[in-house]
């Protein structure tokens, strides 16, 4: 977790603008949680990409005759209640997971950061309006807004992803505005003002770079949360719909068979946990590597 204080890190701490790219990678490869997180994230990404071209068996063909097989040479992790190969289901499930995460965080990050920066830069009634709006969106957790949307639009991946994305906006607004406000109170912003810079330039040149690492950490947490929310919605039957395989759905199927085939409830959950853990570690590592101030102190 803790990066040792290296000469290059110390140099970077003194002159953040002068970090050579090679130095970044040398430090990155020595950073344990970055390497582990990147490895796990690449594993999930690799599984998703692999499923586009190859799976051991079809993830869609139902073969009830070979249902609930234990692990074997043919089916490495066995088969589910419909005779589908678990490994194939897990591979294809990685695809929906990544897609949902990218879209949802994309929605949240884009709208959230813009609104948060505006709120911090403008103050007054604009800040009040944005914060009240975000409070108010905040009253609808992803599961709740997905439920509302599902009640009228019918359940589905698009509905659930949109709901998760909308729910991510206020989190990014709050984090952005909170950390941006702290930067706005600093002396160097006052100096920039005295030098005649407007609030737009200060936001882009001083505020955004200084809160970037916080946003990266938040974005990885939110990506992980999006994966978790999608899994929960699919588990409830409101997210990805069959026959499209998804990890949450697999857990739902497995729960009715806990006494017969307990392992069926273990694999998909482990897959979700690996994806989320990988992203979180990756975010932690990136924070240490990108923000010398924080890296030095951790």
């Amino acid at each position, binding site marked *: *977790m*803790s990066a040792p204080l290296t000469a290059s890190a110390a140099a970077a701490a003194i002159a953040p603008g002068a970090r050579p790219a090679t130095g970044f990678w040398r430090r990155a490869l020595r950073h344990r949680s970055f390497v582990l997180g990147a490895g796990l994230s690449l594993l999930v990404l690799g599984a998703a990409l692999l499923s586009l071209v190859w799976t051991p068996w079809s993830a869609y063909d139902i073969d009830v005759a070979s249902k609930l097989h234990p692990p074997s040479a043919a089916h490495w992790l066995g088969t589910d209640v419909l005779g589908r190969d678990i490994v194939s289901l897990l591979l294809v499930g990685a695809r929906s997971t990544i897609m949902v995460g990218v879209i949802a965080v994309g929605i949240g990050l884009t709208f959230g950061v813009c609104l948060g920066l505006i709120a911090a830069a403008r103050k007054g009634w604009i800040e*009040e309006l944005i914060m*009240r709006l975000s*409070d*108010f969106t*905040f*009253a*609808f*957790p*992803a*599961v*709740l807004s997905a*439920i*509302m*949307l*599902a*009640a*009228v*639009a019918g359940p589905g991946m698009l509905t659930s992803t949109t709901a998760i994305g909308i729910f991510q906006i206020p*989190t990014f607004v*709050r984090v952005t505005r*909170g950390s941006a406000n702290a930067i706005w109170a600093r002396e160097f912003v006052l100096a920039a003002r005295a030098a005649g810079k407007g609030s737009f330039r200060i936001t882009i040149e001083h505020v955004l770079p200084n809160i970037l690492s916080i946003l990266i950490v938040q974005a990885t*947490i939110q990506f*992980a949360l999006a994966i*978790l929310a999608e*899994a*929960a919605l699919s*588990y*409830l039957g409101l997210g990805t719909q069959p026959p499209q395989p998804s990890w*949450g759905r697999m*857990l739902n199927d*497995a*729960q009715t068979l*806990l*006494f017969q085939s*307990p392992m069926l*409830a*273990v694999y*998909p*959950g482990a897959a*979700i*946990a*690996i994806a*989320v*853990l990988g992203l*979180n*570690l990756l975010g*932690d590592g990136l924070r240490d590597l990108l923000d010398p101030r924080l890296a030095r*102190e*951790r």
Partner: protein
Amino acid sequence: MSVFFLRRILTLVATLFAASLIIFLVLDALPGNAAQMLMGADASPDAVHALTVKLGLDQPLAVRYLLWIKGMAVGDLGNSYVYGTPVSGLIAERLVLTIPLAIMSMLITVTLALAAGIYTAANHNKLGDVGVMSLTQIGIALPNFWFAILLILLFSVKLQLLSAGGFAGWDDGIWPGIRSLLLPAISLAVVQAAILARVTRSAVLEVLREDFVRTARAKGLGKREVLWRHVLRNAIIPVMTVMGLQFANLLAGTIVIENVFYLPGLGRLIFQSIANRDLIVVRNCVMLLAAMVVIVNFVVDVLYAFIDPRIKVANL
């Protein structure tokens, strides 16, 4: 003082109104005809019309919205389309499960998180810090409903200590009820506590670097005294913010967890009502949950002012 509270209360009321309007528009305006949805696509037009009139859905949108608001003010939420009984009664009998569940898991969350967060910050970069932080890293990655299923596998399937689901109720005293909410509350709390512990740790570490901490140490205060007297009070603001935010997740979590454990709480009610197309129940349940989140965050906002008087001044 009073200006601060007045403004906060006004925004609270405005937020609640806005929330009710959105919920009403999403659930009642978009889908067209609730009666048609209830009776299915092949119902005769006459029957659908009769039901529309009976449910009062033939009135203009604005009238129905105002009737709903008026109903909420006097505690009459209307009758369920499916059961025909008052919605307020349906919700009330579910809340005796969901509210204790939420409180139990919040208590477990805060206890675990503060203990772990303060411990790790005080032992920064030592073995205990690294160990506990690795555990929280795994805790954050666990889907709470999967953790719930694993708990069921361990305590119900293998050890056969607790039941795999269902709710004993409060009629036989408090313990059977708490017993049946124990696994659900733990599965909700563990993930939240992992997040909150990390927030607590970084908040405490952040404050430990402040000049006034160095001053306090320099004037001769011990490490422990500085931690309890100066650091915690200053570190508690971000911790409380996250706690407020987590409350929304907690309520959303109960919807999922209640389904894992087959608990007859508010979450199950919403879920069954969607399946039954009982939109009036969905509408009121969603409004209730939204209101709970808004009010909790309002309370957090007001508490800030008590903890840190500078915030009140800044907001005037």
